[in-house]
């Protein structure tokens, strides 16, 4: 049972305070918390669940805003954290982003939202579709409308019909002029490659994202050509689990708009689409560095948005790096980022240069880890294929679309 939620800015200022129970939590707790952050350094380094002299604190940091919740009783920690994450998601969805100014400008909406999301410390609903029906988001359309009609209320006067329906994530009697549904496979490849170039670990975390603009109560079924590759799956509450267990078919009545239908994990992939080969050779106070990037296993589509990032060890005093393709940027905190962009067809990108070590240091003995990002449009690297998407009760023939995309997630190359 949460007692209070605070929103703090990145300078520790209280942006918003929402007391949830009759038992008030004094604001001084924020000072205590902020002191902890100052003494521990970065707020990201502070454990998400901490214990203050009077309360248990849960914190989630998003875009510089700290969502801090207090409780005095034993409760499932994941419930608190998960709830705070949802609050953050809903707010950024409503406000179209998340920062100090947005929250200050729209604090009334934030209060309204929190009011509907949690009562007396127990989470009620965090489903964006339902909240949208109760509290209109502050978008331009409603602003224009309010000017035209003179009705400035941003609250719909009717209660969400869905609260009474058997499909709580969907409004009743929806109407769309164009009936369309899009399915995106978005995959992230997490891989660790050790200094010998061997794959230590490689797996895919993927999501099936659906954007549905369908009228009425559509009943969809989505099936995959190769569902056996999944190692584990998690579903949106709208998915009926029985058909999945029997035939690996996703059967569901979708919420309106964009939502995450399922997420999955595919383990034990054998290779990565690209390789990154760093090399260091030290000699009397300087170190030659060379990094090669190339295609290892051609995915069939072009690879773009390639960046290679690493942090120079603290013992490096200066560096001189030059790439044969793309641009290298060295920041003050010694983070080097090499932006390659689209993989060129005719040559393999490489970067080389020298690092000057601290005086008295002969050779480099700590080596950086390279963080690699990339994007491949049109391919799901796990090999997952959508078989078909059917509509059971269509009013009119809808437009269907499919896309796939793979990104580098935690793609790390050690040296």
């Amino acid at each position, binding site marked *: 049972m949460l007692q209070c939620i605070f929103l703090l800015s990145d300078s520790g*200022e209280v942006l918003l*305070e929402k007391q949830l*129970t*009759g*038992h*008030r*939590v004094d604001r*001084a707790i924020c*000072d205590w918390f902020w002191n902890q952050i100052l003494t521990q350094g970065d707020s*990201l*380094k502070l*454990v*998400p669940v901490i*214990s203050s002299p*009077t*309360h248990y604190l849960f*914190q*989630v*940091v998003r875009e510089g805003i700290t969502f801090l919740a207090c409780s*005095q*009783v*034993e409760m*499932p*920690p*994941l*419930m608190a954290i*998960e*709830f705070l994450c949802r609050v953050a998601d809903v707010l950024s969805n409503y406000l179209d982003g998340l920062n100090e100014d947005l929250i*200050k*400008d729209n*604090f*009334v909406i934030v*209060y*309204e939202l929190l*009011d509907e999301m949690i*009562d*007396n410390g*127990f*989470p*009620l*609903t965090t489903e964006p579709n339902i909240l949208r029906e*109760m509290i209109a988001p502050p978008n331009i359309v409603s*602003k224009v409308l309010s000017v035209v009609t003179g009705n400035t*209320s*941003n609250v719909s*006067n009717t209660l969400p019909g869905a*609260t*009474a329906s058997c499909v*709580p994530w969907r409004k009743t009697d929806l109407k769309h002029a164009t009936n369309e549904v899009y399915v995106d496979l978005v995959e992230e490849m997490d891989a*660790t490659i050790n200094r010998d170039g061997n794959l230590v*670990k490689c797996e895919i975390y993927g999501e099936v994202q659906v954007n549905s603009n369908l009228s009425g109560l559509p009943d969809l079924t989505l099936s995959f050509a190769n569902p056996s590759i999944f*190692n584990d799956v*998690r*579903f949106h509450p709208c998915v009926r689990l029985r058909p999945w267990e029997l035939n690996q078919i996703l059967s569901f009545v979708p919420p309106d708009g964009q939502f995450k239908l399922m997420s999955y994990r595919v383990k034990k992939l054998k290779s990565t689409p690209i390789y990154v080969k760093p090399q260091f050779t030290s000699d009397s106070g300087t170190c030659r560095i060379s990094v090669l990037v190339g295609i290892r296993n051609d995915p069939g589509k072009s690879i773009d948005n390639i960046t290679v990032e690493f942090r120079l*060890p*603290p013992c490096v005093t200066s560096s001189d790096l030059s790439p044969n393709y793309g641009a290298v940027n060295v920041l003050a905190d010694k983070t080097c980022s090499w932006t390659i962009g689209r993989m060129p067809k005719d040559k393999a990108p490489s970067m080389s240069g020298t690092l000057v070590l601290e005086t008295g240091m002969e050779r480099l*003995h700590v*080596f*950086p880890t390279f963080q690699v990002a990339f994007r491949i449009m049109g391919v799901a690297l796990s090999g997952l294929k959508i078989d078909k998407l059917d509509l059971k009760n269509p009013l009119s023939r809808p437009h269907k679309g499919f896309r796939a995309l793979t990104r580098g997630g935690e793609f*790390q190359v050690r040296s």
Partner: protein
Amino acid sequence: MAPPAQSHRSPSPSQPSGKGEVSDLKTQLRQLAGSRAPGTDDTKRDLFKKVISYMTIGIDVSSVFSEMVMCSATSDIVLKKMCYLYVGNYAKHNPDLALLTINFLQRDCKDEDPMIRGLALRSLCSLGVANLVEYLVGPLGNGLKDGNSYVRMVAAVGVLKLYHLSASTCLDADFPPLLKQLMLKDKDAQVVANCLTSLQEIWSLEASTSEEAARERETLLSKPVVYYFLNRMKEFSEWAQCIVLELVSKYVPMDTEEIFDIMNLLEDRLHHANGAVVLATIKVFLHMTLSMTDVHQQVYERIKAPLLTLVSSGSPEQSYAVLSHLHLLVMRAPYIFSSDYKHFYCQYNEPFYVKKLKLEMLTAVANESNTYEIVTELCEYVANVDIPMARESIRAVGKIALQQYDVNAIVDRLLQFLEMEKEHVTAETLVLVKDLLRKYPQWSHDCIAVVGNISSKNVQEPKAKAALIWMLGEYAQDMQDSPYILEGLVENWDEEDSAEVRLHLLTAVVKCFLRRAPETQKALGDALAAGVTDFHQDVHDRAFLYYRLLKYDVSVAERIVNPPKQAVSVFADTQSSEMKDRIFDEFNSLSVVYQKPSYMFTDKEHRGPFAFSEELGNLSIGTEPSDAAVAAQRVEANDKDLLLGTSEKEEGHGYGSNGSAYSAPSYNASTTAGASQAHFDLVSIDQPSTVHPPVSFAIDDLLGLGMPSAPSSVPSTLQLNAKASIDANAFQQKWRQQPISLSQETSIDPRGVAGMMNPQALPQHMQGHSINCIASGGQAPKFKFFFFAQKEDGSSAYLVECIINSSSCKVQLKIKADEQATSQAFSELFQSALSKFGSA
């Protein structure tokens, strides 16, 4: 949306400039109050927003209360919401003004728009003014019967709010039975869930005083009710599912068939997108199968994949919470996760707290088949730029070495670390090599060769230095240069700041002398000379001890300083298995994150209910009004048992239990292993290399009472004053001032636990033994009592905090006494009295 008021940006809450603006607002609001001109609502809205933004940044705007209420007559719902928010914030401190709001809130409760009815009811219940509760009963009653589920949902929670304000009003209005009816009948799942949460809280708080409530609480866990919830599971929102699952986890099924039915029904919850639901389901599975070993193992297999997905899919904060639970499971059943070790590999950009958990898991899952790969991975981290991480990794390698039979490869790796020539790596490795040698003396040859090459100048950390010196002394005959290195160290005696290192140096020199006398003689002379003039008491004493021993008889000295050592087979585990079981019982709770059972930190939990009752004028002892207690220094001034984070807590315990036993070896397996080794050398006369917990020994020795035995078997010499009395405030003050003289954990007879069904009986029982109850509180399964007793002659008073956990049959005692020496005797008296509870 209107542009934000400029005053939003005023950064400091204490900024005085707010004042003038507040009075401006006041006049503006007053002008608007009666106006019905078109566009008034827009102006009001801007003003309200200003007021609330002041409130948000902490400026006191309670002075405009009456104006706000006057302006609240509006049909604009946003205005209403802002007004509710404002009123909810200030009503508690202005009960008189709050009366003004009752009228319009009650009117809104009858509005035709269900949204407004709901909002008004919610605000009405949140006012938190105790003397206005009478106005709540009517609207709440109507709300529970409202045709709209939104209003019923708000009303269900409102009943709980009312209960916390005034329990008697709530019970007199017969709300709990109404809620129960609603819970079992309502069509809307959210209403049902809210009824459940309210009823759970009300009945468990009432259970201590009313048998009926206790019975009702039991019926919540009865088969029909639990099945009713299970059958409606899919209708509930994800959060309500968590609450229901928590309830189900407490249900005890009749037979295995029932268990399988429930698990089959809930299996699909493991696929839920909400991690909290998944974890709550896992808790149900684990608890239900505890008695069925085979199935329990299958459950582990089944929940592995969902847990691992949760870890890799969420934000770092979510991962952390899941990892803490995974950590617990891995520690319980490492072999099940041993094939998934790659999931515990660390990413270099993960926060340290995540990496640390992962390292512990890697250590736990290491077995014959994967050790090589895990250690290879760990070695990668050792070369890491991140120094704390490198240290932890080395420790992990060491731990794996200590738990595996095939240490050959690992020893090689460790020795390679020493050649990396990084100070922190060398230091950490030396400590480990020392521990390794204590367990596997057969490796001494390889290790010594490498250790001998390390220049003592490159080792600065006391712990590492101590480890190096220990090895120099222990393996003096194998290390060529040992006497000369030691001699060099002795020469720098004065520059050595750490007493620990100097102690080790003394012992090492003596050991070396006993083996290679001619070469060490000079070093020994210098060391003893420096030792006896040392300002540190321990060093001084030990130097004298050695000096006299050597003077008395060298062979005796040999036997004492250098006895044949047995290899240490098991290093004491820091956490007992019983403790781990306890944490496991509290799966999906904070205990798991803090890695300790809740009784060790949930003093806050007691404050919660206590603080609520405070407002009712009840007695509350040992609790702080929570807002006042925020100031950290105040808490420090408070006695140390009042919670705090991990480390402080442990220190507090250690301090409290050791009492004045100054020389007792402070044993803490990982951190002071070096130091305690030194102590064992000393005590090894009669107990070669046994590790014993110092607590009880130290105290017993002081009292000369011998081993603690069954409480009743020791004839009690302590007589208590039957008419002792103390008033609550004096008790509270005394409790704060005195240090804990004894802190104990024992178990209670199951019959006594049965007696705890009626906790009021315990104070009566104890009174019969001249021990008076000052305050009591808590709810099943945990009860907390404060007792007071006085010695027959009135010379010494005893204050006791007693926490009884009726589910685990455990009792925790903290005793504070005027005369420290008699606290043990009193504790026995107390326990014997307690043990008779329920049996009489």
